[in-house]
């Protein structure tokens, strides 16, 4: 078991954002978490890093309890996050952003890793010296993914990687996810609103509503399930 959440509760200000989440990710899996705006998906990913700190429950990674560790220590445990809203460093160059991703990695791998990123996202190589804030939305998204990969994570967490991307890029991103998983054996936890794509790319999926997991199954099963279609078509934020 790579990542395990049991009975996780979290509060965001006054909002009880997570209400008893049980979720697990096995080594080598692509797992997706789907659900509407405001269902608590992003909070779930951030709470893995203690932002916000969970108020009850337990999170283990690779058998180690990481529930109470400081954010930067958790980040040193081979988990990388591509957060909501990309959060690239706008006033740094593309190269510097990539180097920030590699801060904890073995410097000997740097050149190899950079080459890998250029191969994945050729546009980044063209823009190396450009300030990241001047990139377009899609380029920023690619940069955010590349930055996360520079740390050579075992577990990659992606928060809506397709947001604001052109169709061609969305395809490319999901292709990359598949490649990372199949060719490099990377474990991936993926949050998407674009449930169709996400479920097709994933081995297993969870459906989240109002801070709770309401359903789980293989990607194929969920895709076929009437309730899932209803859940992600109807949205889950009505009461928010």
């Amino acid at each position, binding site marked *: 078991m790579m990542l395990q959440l049991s009975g996780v509760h979290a509060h965001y200000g006054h909002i009880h954002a997570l209400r008893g989440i049980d979720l697990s990710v096995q080594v080598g899996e692509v797992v997706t978490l789907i659900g*509407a*705006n*405001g269902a608590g998906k992003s909070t779930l990913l951030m709470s893995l890093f203690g932002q916000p700190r969970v108020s009850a429950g337990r999170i283990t990674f690779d058998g180690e309890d990481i529930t109470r560790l400081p954010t930067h220590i958790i980040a040193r445990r081979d988990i990388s996050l591509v957060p909501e809203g990309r959060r690239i460093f706008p006033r740094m160059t593309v190269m510097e952003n990539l180097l920030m991703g590699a801060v904890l990695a073995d410097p000997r791998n740097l050149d190899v890793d950079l080459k890998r990123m250029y191969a994945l996202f050729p*546009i980044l190589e063209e823009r190396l010296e450009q300030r990241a804030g*001047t*990139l*377009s*939305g*899609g*380029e920023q*998204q690619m940069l955010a993914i590349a930055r996360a990969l520079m740390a050579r994570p075992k577990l990659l967490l992606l928060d*809506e990687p397709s*947001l*604001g*991307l*052109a*169709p*061609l*890029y969305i*395809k490319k991103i999901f292709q990359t996810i598949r490649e990372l998983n199949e060719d490099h054996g990377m474990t991936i936890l993926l949050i998407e*609103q*674009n449930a*169709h*794509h996400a479920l097709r790319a994933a081995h297993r999926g969870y459906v989240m509503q109002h801070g709770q997991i309401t359903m789980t199954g293989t990607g194929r099963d969920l*895709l*076929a399930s*009437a309730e899932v*279609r*209803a859940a*992600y*078509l*109807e*949205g889950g*934020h009505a009461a*928010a």
Partner: protein
Amino acid sequence: MSSDVAVPLLSVERLTMRFGGLAAIDDLSLDVPPGKITGVIGPNGAGKTTFFNCLTGFYKPTVGSVRLNHPERGVLRLEDLPSHQVAHTAQVVRTFQNIRLFPKMTVLENLIVAQHNVLQKASQFSLAGILGLPSYRRAEAQAVAKAVDWLTRLGLIDKADTAAGDLPYGTQRRIEIARALCVDPLLLCLDEPAAGLNPRESGELNELLLRLVADEGLTILLIEHDMSVVMNVSNHICVLNYGRKIAEGTPKQMQNDPNVIKAYLGEEEADELLYGEKGGESTGVTP
């Protein structure tokens, strides 16, 4: 075709915007017919948002002109107007890719601020307002009525007294559109209004846009990646790549245009990307 279609509301001529040596927009010409929805699509970084920034006075284009055919004020050259005049005088109003609401103010306040110029005039340098003269009170009541009207039509009325920043993303998108509508736009420029919306919400957005054009006679310029929105509502689509227009035409034409498929939609699965995404209709899974 009626005769007024022949006179475009907005004509962009040979617009070029350079940052340093890089041309973000390169010799772009485009006509926006009144009372229609014109879609602008293209890969990320093709210069779509830069185009909007040039239209709305946030950037001064390096070369070229943007002319608006205002029904009352005649031809206005948008590139010469400061951004607030673009909204105020030319009635070209935009929304933003990264939602720019006034987060601590309530939804209603957001919509009232949008009517600032009207109210400010009615308040006569705040004097009529401070004294609480009836002329001002009437103007304020009208402004509130207008805001309430849009809030009701966009299904936001029960959020009126909530701070805008506390609401979910999809709701904020709608508020931003409602706020823009309170400025009384002739031309509404929407920058990725469907980004971050779930399929049901983007379906609702489609209906809204079509209703605005049909009921209000509004003209809409739309940047969007969500093909389920662009292809279903646009009368006309312009495709940009590297700041240049690579194709222009009806949605159907664009879906089959080899250049567009190559640069934007993707080689093989163009059709699936167009129609198979959000609803999942093409996957063959039956509910």
